[in-house]
């Protein structure tokens, strides 16, 4: 096949040589997700790579202009069903800002609990598929997926849906904590903390996993900042940047937690950042359940947003996700712009996979936790 020329600014050797071969990885999901990566190989080494995305593009931003603010909620969280609360929350924040609606404290706490549960679920998904399967480790795939289901069941108890919750609307969450939820969640957290120790033993300290990931795909601190990557990828390169601390939303300003960072910037560091973040999420949920105030959970919000624009952001599992919402005095947004972690981390892929073995590409791709649907929107 004739490959398109690879993306120039990141490539070292763009012109095809007699010794190079162009290979199309994907889009039929051989570990590339729903995107295609065109790689140029020289022997067993990747010379350059060009991600060809858009296979799951469905025009979310265009559709959003046709729907009213509330009916936009379900479809704007669809791009990432593993992380629906954060996509939902990021979209609701700027609308509330335009409308001047403030969520009551109890609503903020419930949103925070739901969001941190979702972060654990999303990181477990990443641990199972993106890290476990892509390094050829089937046990962690089964374990993490099994434990993720326990959180999914509790999320269903809270929101009524397993993955696509549509839980937060302008004004606050749709439901209060159900009877018995707190008890079940605390029990699950006790169990989960024991499991985290076992995860460490079987996966993160496993010599075969460490051999596959340590020193593979190193993104230095300066490069990470220059490329504008975000989320766990950024924090694995030693930049302490998390929206929950930088610009606290929800109940995060009341809660005590750390932002795990690593200096190495390799695939193992990116794996470990997510692992440490799960521990922090457990800590956050415990505190939130203790401190949660009584009172109303939501305020009534108008269906119309006034003219103007607002930008809101939250820290999703894949990094900062920001929404710009432009209102025009009607019940439909004039423009919605989604800036998400997957799309911003895409630039790191061609940068990291050059001059590595072909066999290392799935590991690097998995360590970025790239979600094609989120990036394509």
């Amino acid at each position: 096949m004739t490959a398109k020329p690879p993306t120039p600014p990141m490539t070292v050797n763009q012109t095809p040589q007699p010794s190079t071969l162009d290979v199309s990885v994907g889009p039929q999901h051989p570990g590339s997700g729903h995107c295609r990566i065109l790689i140029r190989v020289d022997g067993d080494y990747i010379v350059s790579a060009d991600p060809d995305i858009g296979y799951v593009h469905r025009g979310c931003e265009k559709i959003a202009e046709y729907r009213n603010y509330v009916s936009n909620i379900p479809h704007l969280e669809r791009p990432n069903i593993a992380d629906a609360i954060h996509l939902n929350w990021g979209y609701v924040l700027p609308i509330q800002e335009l409308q001047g609606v403030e969520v009551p404290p109890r609503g903020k706490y419930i949103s925070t609990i739901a969001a941190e549960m979702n972060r654990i679920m999303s990181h477990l998904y990443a641990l199972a598929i993106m890290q476990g399967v892509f390094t050829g480790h089937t046990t962690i795939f089964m374990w993490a997926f099994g434990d993720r289901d326990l959180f999914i069941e509790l999320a269903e108890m809270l929101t009524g849906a397993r993955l696509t919750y549509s839980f937060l609307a302008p004004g606050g969450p749709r439901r209060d904590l159900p009877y018995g939820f707190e008890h079940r969640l605390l029990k699950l957290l006790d169990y989960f903390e024991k499991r985290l120790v076992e995860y460490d033993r079987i996966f993160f300290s496993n010599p075969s996993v460490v051999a596959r990931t340590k020193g593979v795909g190193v993104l230095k601190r300066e490069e990470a900042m220059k490329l504008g990557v975000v989320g766990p990828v950024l924090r694995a390169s030693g930049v302490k940047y998390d929206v929950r601390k930088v610009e606290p939303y929800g109940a995060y300003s009341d809660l005590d937690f750390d932002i795990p960072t690593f200096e190495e910037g390799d695939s193992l560091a990116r794996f470990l950042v997510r692992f440490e973040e799960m521990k922090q999420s457990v800590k956050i949920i415990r505190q939130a359940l203790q401190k949660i105030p009584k009172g109303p959970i939501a305020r009534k919000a108008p269906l119309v947003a006034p003219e103007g624009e607002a930008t809101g952001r939250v820290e999703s599992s894949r990094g900062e996700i920001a929404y710009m919402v432009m209102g025009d005095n009607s019940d439909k947004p004039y423009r919605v712009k989604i800036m998400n972690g997957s799309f911003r981390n895409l630039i790191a892929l061609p940068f990291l996979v050059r001059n590595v073995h072909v066999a290392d590409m799935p590991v690097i791709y998995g360590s970025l936790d790239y979600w094609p649907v989120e990036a394509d929107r």
Partner: protein
Amino acid sequence: MSETSLSKEETLIDRLKAQFPQAIKDTKIDRPLRVTVNFEKDHVLEISRFMCDELGFDHVKGVAGVDFPTQKRIEVLYFVGSYSKPEVQDLIVILKAELPRDNPTIPSVVSVWQSAHYHERETFEMFGVKFEGHPDLRKLLTQDNWEGPPPMLKDVKFPEMGQR
């Protein structure tokens, strides 16, 4: 307001205005931590270089186009943030340029902010904005055989989705 009590938003605006008295048309503090700067599009490279090198705004979070067909203009919004300077990490600066709708061109900022690479490609595809000097300006998200106008323009309508 005295010099000492200037907020960081105001300090930022003052520095930008002092450096570019001609190029900056209008500034606004939308709310704490959000600054919108309207500027003359031909000066985008000088402004971005100054923001990157002097003010510490080292990455682009996104590039958005907004179409205003009745006013015959397309706005390009650069959402700029900082990783390297802790005191302005929480700011989002929105650089806004107005382009004529019949020929929307603007110099590319990829030479300053490499992180804008894919964002500019997306805006080129969705709004037809030509980023001059972009190293690799080609389609990104739409299918290869899409031949219509840039799909995010307001005059591209999808009646099956309802009224707009």
